C-alpha cells in the first residue's frame, strides 16, 4: 500500500437501493483502489474493494479493440438505422446518464426500459392501480413502531435496511431503537433475515396474495374462510392477531421485496399489499415501500417518469411516449423477437433473462456500456468500458425512497462515464438523422396504449 492516501468522507454506496451516503472512504491513489470503506456493509465493502481500474480496451467492436470514438460511430449507425431499437438497463448509472439515454430513445423513436421491469415493475403497475402510502426512510426510523418485511431477505440483500433505517436505529419517537418496534417478517423460507423478527410468518410459496387478501378482509371486519390455513400455512388466528397489532400500532411500515413481484400473481401481490396499507390508514398511520435493488433504479424510475409520464417500458416509435408493460418491456420485446437493436446501459440481461430473450440478444446488434466484462458485453457488437458511478463518476442517484443524493467520486478513471459516451452517441445520431426523427403519421390516440 502506498503512502498516497486520500480520505473521501460522506461518499455514497450505490451497490443497492439503500444508497447509504455515510461511507467514509480511504483511497490508495497510486493503486487507484479503495482500501477502506467505513460504515459499509458486507456488500458495500465488496463494491468499493472490487471496483478498481481494470486494464480493458476502451471499446470493442465485434470483439476487436477500438477507440471510444469508433465505438460511438458504430453505435450511432446502429441506432440510427434500427426500426425498433431498445435502450435497456439504466439502473446502475447516474440520473445524468439516464436523462441522455431517454433523450436518445426519444430522438430515434425507440423504446426505453429499465431493470425495473424485471424487479419492482409489477409494484409500479400496482402503484398505478391503487396508489401508495409511503414515506422517506427517516420517517420509518423516527416513527415506525411496527415494521413488516414481506418477501425479502434484507440481511443478505440490503443489510443496512435493518441497521441504518428500519429496525435497530433509534429515532425521534423510537428512543430505544429495536426495543420500541415490533418486527414482523413474512417469507416462504427461513433466511438470514428471519432472526431479526419478533413474529415470523412462513407462508406457502405462491400464497402471499391469499394472505394479504385475507388481511385486507380482516382489517375491514369481513369474513375470511378458515381454509386460509390449509392454503397458505397461516392460521386465521395468527392473521387476526397480526391485524389487531397492525391496527393498534402508532406508525406502521411495510418493506416488501421481490418475493411478491417475481412470483405468480406479480403486480397483484404488490397491489394487495399497497391496498392493505391504504386500508390500515382508516385506523392508524401506515406506509409501504418496495425495497429496491440496483443503486439507482429509483432514479431511473424518476427520470423516465418525469420525461415521459411513465416509469418504465416506454415506447416512442410513434413520436410520443406510450406505456404498456408486456408490450414495450424488454423481456417481451426480446422473447418475441421484435426489437432489432439494443443498447444496454449498465446491466447484464444475458445473465438473468429467460432463455428465449437471451437467444434473441444473440441475433441482433447489441451495444453495451459497463465497467466490467459481463455475459452481455461478451455478446455485444459494440462494448464500451465505462467508469464506475459513485466511485469514479459523480452525479445524482435516488435512494429507494426517492431521496436524491449527489455522489462523491473517490478517484478518476481513465474510462469515460456513461453520460459522456451517451452524449456523444446522441450528438452523432442527431447529426445522422438531422434532428429528432418525426414519423409522418398523426397520433392514433384512440389506439395509443
Amino acid at each position, binding site marked *: 500500500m502506498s503512502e498516497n492516501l486520500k480520505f473521501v468522507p460522506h461518499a455514497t454506496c450505490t451497490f443497492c437501493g439503500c444508497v447509504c451516503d455515510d461511507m467514509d472512504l480511504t483511497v490508495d491513489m497510486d493503486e487507484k483502489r479503495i482500501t477502506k470503506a467505513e460504515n459499509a456493509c458486507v456488500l458495500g465493502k465488496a463494491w468499493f474493494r472490487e471496483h478498481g481500474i481494470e486494464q480493458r480496451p476502451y471499446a470493442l467492436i465485434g470483439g476487436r479493440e477500438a477507440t471510444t470514438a469508433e465505438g460511438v460511430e458504430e453505435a450511432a449507425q446502429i441506432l440510427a438505422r434500427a426500426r425498433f431499437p431498445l435502450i435497456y438497463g439504466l439502473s446502475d448509472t447516474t440520473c445524468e446518464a439516464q436523462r441522455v439515454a431517454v433523450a436518445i430513445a426519444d430522438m430515434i423513436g425507440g423504446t426505453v426500459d429499465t431493470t425495473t421491469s424485471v424487479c419492482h415493475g409489477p409494484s409500479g403497475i400496482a402503484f398505478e392501480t391503487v396508489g401508495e402510502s409511503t*414515506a422517506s426512510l427517516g420517517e420509518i426510523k423516527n416513527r415506525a413502531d411496527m415494521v413488516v418485511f414481506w418477501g425479502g431477505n434484507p440481511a443478505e440483500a440490503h443489510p443496512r435496511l435493518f441497521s441504518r433505517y428500519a429496525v435497530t436505529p433509534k429515532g425521534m419517537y423510537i428512543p430505544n431503537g429495536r426495543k420500541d418496534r415490533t418486527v414482523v417478517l413474512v417469507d416462504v423460507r427461513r433466511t438470514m433475515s428471519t432472526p431479526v423478527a419478533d413474529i415470523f410468518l412462513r407462508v406457502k410459496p405462491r400464497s402471499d396474495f391469499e394472505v394479504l387478501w385475507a388481511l385486507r378482509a380482516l382489517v375491514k371486519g369481513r369474513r375470511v374462510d378458515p381454509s386460509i390455513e390449509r392454503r397458505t400455512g397461516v392460521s386465521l388466528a395468527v392473521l387476526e392477531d397480526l391485524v389487531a397489532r397492525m391496527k393498534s400500532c402508532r406508525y406502521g411500515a411495510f418493506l416488501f421485496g421481490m418475493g411478491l413481484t417475481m412470483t405468480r400473481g406479480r403486480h397483484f401481490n404488490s397491489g394487495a399489499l399497497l391496498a392493505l396499507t391504504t386500508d390500515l390508514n382508516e385506523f392508524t398511520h401506515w406506509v409501504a415501500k418496495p425495497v429496491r435493488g440496483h443503486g439507482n433504479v429509483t432514479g431511473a424510475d424518476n427520470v423516465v417518469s418525469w420525461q415521459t409520464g411513465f416509469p418504465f417500458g416506454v415506447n416512442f416509435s410513434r413520436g410520443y411516449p406510450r406505456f404498456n408493460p408486456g408490450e414495450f418491456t424488454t423481456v417481451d420485446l426480446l422473447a418475441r423477437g421484435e426489437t432489432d437493436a439494443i443498447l444496454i446501459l449498465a446491466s447484464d440481461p444475458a445473465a438473468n433473462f429467460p432463455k428465449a430473450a437471451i437467444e434473441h440478444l444473440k441475433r441482433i446488434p447489441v451495444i453495451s456500456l459497463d465497467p466490467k466484462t459481463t455475459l452481455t458485453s461478451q455478446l455485444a457488437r459494440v462494448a464500451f468500458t465505462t467508469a464506475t458511478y459513485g466511485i469514479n463518476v459523480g452525479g445524482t442517484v435516488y435512494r429507494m425512497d426517492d431521496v436524491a443524493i449527489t455522489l462523491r467520486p473517490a478517484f478518476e478513471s481513465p474510462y469515460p462515464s456513461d453520460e459522456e459516451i451517451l452524449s456523444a452517441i446522441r450528438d452523432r445520431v442527431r447529426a445522422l438523422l438531422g434532428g429528432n426523427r418525426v414519423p409522418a403519421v398523426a397520433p392514433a390516440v384512440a389506439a395509443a396504449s
Partner: protein
Amino acid sequence: MGSSLRIVNGRVYDPANGVDGEVRDVCIRDGKIAADAPPDAKRIDAAGMVVMPGGVDIHCHIAGPKVNLARKVQPEDHRYDVHPRTRVTRSGTGGSVPSTFATGYRYAGLGYTTAMEAAVTPLGARHALEELHDTPVIDKGFYVLVGNNVLLYRLLQEGRLEEFRNALAWWIKVTKAYAPKLVNPGGDELWKGQRNANITSLDDKIGPFELTPRKVIAGFIEAATALGLPHPVHIHCNNLGHTGNVATTLETMRLAEGRRTHFAHVQFNSYGPAAGKSQTNPTSGAREIAEFVNTHPNISADVGAVMFGRSTIMTGDAPLAYMLRQFGGTKWVNADTENESGCGIVPFTYQDRVYTNAMQWAVGLELFLLSQDPWRMVFSTDHPNGGSFVTYPRLIRLLMDREFRKARMAEVNQKALDRSGLRDLSREYSLNEIAIVTRAGPARLLGLTRKGQLGVGADADVTIYEEDPDKEKMFSAPRYVIKDGELIIEDHEFRVDHEGRLLHVAPDFDPGIEQVIEPFFEDFYTIRFANYAVDDRYAPHHEIIPTAPQAAGARP
C-alpha cells in the same frame, strides 16, 4: 442570447409601465427589452395583435417528488393527451400532470414564460431542480416547504428566534428555493404521529410541541420579513377545503399585522358555513375574503380557481388528500418526508352538477370579480389542483366575457349558484386587467422586477396574441412567443428549443447555525448533513434574486 428584434404595430399592454393598449414598437436586444433595435433587426409585424409580457404563474405544481408521483400514478390520464416531438423539441405526455418537457412547451405555448413550483420539501429540492432543468423554455423557481419542519418547530418552541431565522435562511439558501412555503401548519405532526389526525383551528396544540399554528405562522412571518425576501411567506392555510374555513383564513390573514404575506389559492379557503339542511355543503365566503384583501395592502393572494374536468389533487396537506380520496376513485398516494412534510395525491374530477364543485367554481370567479386591486389578487388554478394550466384561456374568457360566463352558469348546479354571489356580478375584466393578473401582478408580488413588464432592461419575455373576440381562442395559441429575446414560437410553431433559468434567493445566515442543525441531522435524518445542501450543478442556468434584510422585529 437572442438576436435583435423589433415588434411593430402591435397593441401593447404593459400595465407595470402604464401602457394600456397603445400601438407602439417593442425592441429587443441581447435578451432584454431595449429602447431601440438596430436597423437590421428582425421585424415582427404585430398589426391586429396584442403584445404582452410573458405570463408569470405564481403558484403551480410542476416539478419535484410529489409531482412525479402524481405523474406516475396516472398513465391512463396521459394516454389521450400525447405531446409528439418535433424536429427540435422533445416529446412528452399531458393530462393533468404533464411530463416536464410537455409542461415547459405547453406553458410557452400559452405565452407563459415564468412559473413557480409551489411546494417542494427541502429533501426533495435536488429532485425538483433536476425536473425543472428538464422543463424547457420557461424560467422557474420553487417554494420550499418549511411550515412543518421539526427542527424549526423546536427552535421556535424554545424561543430561539434568531436561530430560527438563521435556520430558515439556511434552508432556503441551501435548497436554492425562491420563497418559504407553509402548508397546513402543524398538520403533519398530527397526521403522522397521531393516527391521521389533523389541525382544526389556529389554537390547536401541535402534537408533542408547545406550539400552535397561530404561533408558527406568526413566527414565520416575522422571520421572513426580517430576511427581506423578494416574495414573502406563501401560506396554504389550515382547514383548506373545509366548509366554514373562511373564519380560519381571516384569522390567519390578521396574523400578518401589516407585514407582506401571500395567501395561496384562497378560493379553497373561502367557504362559508354549511347551508340549508346539509351539514357539509358550504356557502360562499368570497365576499369576506375579497373585502379583507381589498382593505389590507400588505396581503396578496392568488385565486386558485376551480375549472371543471379532470384534475389532480396534489398537496403537502396530507390529511386533506386523505379526506378527498373517498371522492377520487381508486387511487390515493401519501408520502411522508422525514422531519419536513407530508404529501397527498388524489386524481379528481370537478363536476359542474355537483354542489360543492359548482360552489368552488363560483367562489373562484367571485374572488376575481370582487377584487378591487388586480395587482394583489392574481391568477392561478393551483395547477393541477383546481384544474390544469391549459385551462387558463378559458378562465380568462370567463372573466372577460359576461355572456360566456352566464351561459356556463346556466349549466352548473343551481343550488350552489344560488348560495354564491356570482349572479350579482356583471364585471368584465379588461385586457389590461388580464395583463395585470397574469403577468405584471404576479411578477410584482414575486419581486421579479425584470419580469411581467416591457420597460427597457426587462427580460425580453414577450407574447404576441392575435386579437379575437373569443378570448379563450385568443389566449390559447399565441402567434409569437419570445423568451430571453429568442423567437421560440413563430406562427404558432416551435422554431427552437430553449432552456430557461432557475430563479432563486440566497439569504444570508450566520454560519454558526450549521452547528445547531448538524447534530439534529445525525440523529433524525437518514442523509448526512454534508450531503444535504444542493450544489450549483443543479442550477446550470440560474439567477439569484437579491434580498433586502431588515432589522429583526422591524415593522413596515
